[in-house]
């Protein structure tokens, strides 16, 4: 019974594909998976927009949208209709072709990220041998589209915002990839399916997820911080809400193209959370062995929703980082921590199982964190701010 519910969508797909002639079956099967991914994640985007607005509203002690539908949950429909019917204004001096292509390529790249995420048992669109590498390659295409958006608007603020966004994204790509490399080293494979399978199994009731090891926890924290920066989300959203008056690289976009940018950004956020879940949180595995009867895709989406809630929570709570603080954080703090994490995972692999390796690896993670933090903040003094031109 649990097995059929778990494999429900897989058997449904096989049944639907079985109606077609044998030569068309692979294409039809991929097409069905693609349509399913498009539908599910677009729906998740709609739910997230309203969840975010209501969540942020509650954190800021106000209601979110509450007019459309019960408790405002049909707001995305209103938003969609609005963005479709708004006039599409393209600046006269803008580069029309690049201006049009930027959101299109962004959404294209964002949707292709889902091809390598295992959404459930046997539910991955493309079981690539180098799945994680594919993910990072496609997410680096997204950076170029942000430049295209900022430059084609022929607007100084857009260009500045785009430059800052690219600088931020390539800086945070380094700790992101290094944190993933620790998982790749531990699992011995770049394939996402193999990484999830390595985290299956339980000792007693506790799972073998990589996040429950010292290096995995440090790697997970580094990964999530870098993921927040990669998706240009608060507290790293300086390029986008730069002066909140001018929206950075998508200032000159209106109507549906603006909605496409939002879609692309949120899809990127979901995809990178999905990768974090695959690498560190055990993919579609249940957290306790007695809960394994719940279908695997429900666990994946439950974890994904949990991470979305954490993203919204962090957005509502922390202030925005300034550009130099952001860059210093990436290069001076996160990069050394990620490199030390690499050594930690190697030590974990070669020490025999037991309390010793927990203590050694735990110290190898905690001690540099404390020392590095103390060292980097030593020059900071809180003093009364002097305004040069106002005195």
């Amino acid at each position, binding site marked *: 019974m649990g097995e059929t519910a778990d494999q429900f969508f897989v058997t449904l797909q096989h049944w639907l594909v079985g109606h077609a002639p044998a030569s068309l079956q692979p294409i039809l099967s991929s097409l069905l998976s693609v349509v399913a991914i498009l539908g599910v994640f677009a729906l998740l985007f709609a739910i997230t927009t309203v969840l975010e607005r209501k969540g942020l509203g509650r954190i800021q002690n106000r209601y979110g949208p509450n007019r459309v539908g019960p408790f405002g949950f049909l707001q995305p429909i209103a938003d969609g209709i609005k963005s479709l019917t708004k006039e599409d204004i393209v600046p006269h001096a803008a580069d029309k072709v690049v201006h049009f292509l930027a959101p299109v390529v962004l959404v294209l790249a964002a949707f292709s990220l889902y091809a390598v995420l295992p959404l459930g048992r046997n539910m991955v669109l493309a079981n690539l041998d180098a799945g994680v590498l594919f993910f990072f*390659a496609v997410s680096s295409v997204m950076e170029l589209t942000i430049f*295209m958006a900022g430059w084609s608007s022929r607007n100084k603020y857009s260009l500045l915002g785009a430059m800052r966004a*690219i600088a931020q994204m390539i800086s945070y790509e380094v700790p992101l990839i290094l944190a993933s490399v620790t998982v790749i080293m531990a699992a011995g494979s770049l394939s996402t399916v193999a990484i999830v399978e390595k985290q299956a199994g339980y000792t007693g009731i506790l799972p073998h997820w990589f996040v429950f090891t010292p290096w995995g926890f440090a790697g997970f924290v580094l990964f999530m911080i870098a993921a927040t920066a990669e998706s240009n989300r608060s507290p790293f959203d300086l390029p986008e809400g730069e002066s909140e008056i001018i929206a950075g690289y998508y200032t000159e976009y209106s109507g549906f193209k603006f909605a496409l940018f939002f879609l692309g950004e949120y899809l990127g956020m979901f995809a990178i959370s999905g990768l974090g879940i695959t690498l560190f949180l055990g993919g579609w595995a249940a957290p306790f062995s007695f809960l394994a009867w719940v279908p695997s895709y429900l666990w994946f989406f439950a974890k994904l929703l949990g991470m979305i809630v954490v993203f919204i929570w962090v957005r509502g709570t922390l202030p925005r980082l300034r550009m130099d603080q952001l860059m210093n954080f990436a290069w001076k703090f996160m990069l050394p921590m990620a490199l030390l994490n690499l050594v930690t995972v190697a030590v974990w692999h070669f020490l025999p199982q037991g309390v010793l390796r927990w203590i050694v690896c735990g110290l190898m993670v905690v001690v540099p964190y404390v020392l590095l933090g103390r060292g980097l903040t030593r020059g900071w003094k809180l003093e009364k701010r002097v305004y040069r031109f106002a005195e």
Partner: protein
Amino acid sequence: MLFTIFAILTVAGAAAAMSLRNLVHSVLALTVAFAGLAAVYLHLGAQFIGLAQILVYVGAVAILIVFAILLTRDAGATSQSILSSSWIGNGTVVLVIFGILAWAIHHSATSQRVVLPQPEASMQQIGNALMLRFALPLEIIGVLLTVALIGAVTIAMREKKETR
């Protein structure tokens, strides 16, 4: 047929990169050429190098070129048209030479060689080769990259001190 599409994409991208007037448009066309090349690699089954091509060329080299253009020249300026009347005569000469070379290569010994079976290049084998047989070149490349990084930082730092 897929190879033809990718080949046309790559060549068209490269030709556009050469002949477009706007410099940033040329860079974007060059990026399309890189992507076409990555598609060819993936079509041949070389997953690692195809994806690394996208990651490195499209993700890093294209952005580097874009930054270099934007930080050093007036990006709105367009260059002159590069087609002129002397292209017809020159183009004919080039085509004739290309024809002769193509005929010569086609009738030479290289086109009648025995095609070896495709070697296995799985991720495991690339990793093993890099770590075991080619460990020294890997380390030397790492040192080279570190030297380049330190050099770039040193040059940038010295410029900051000079302006003071």
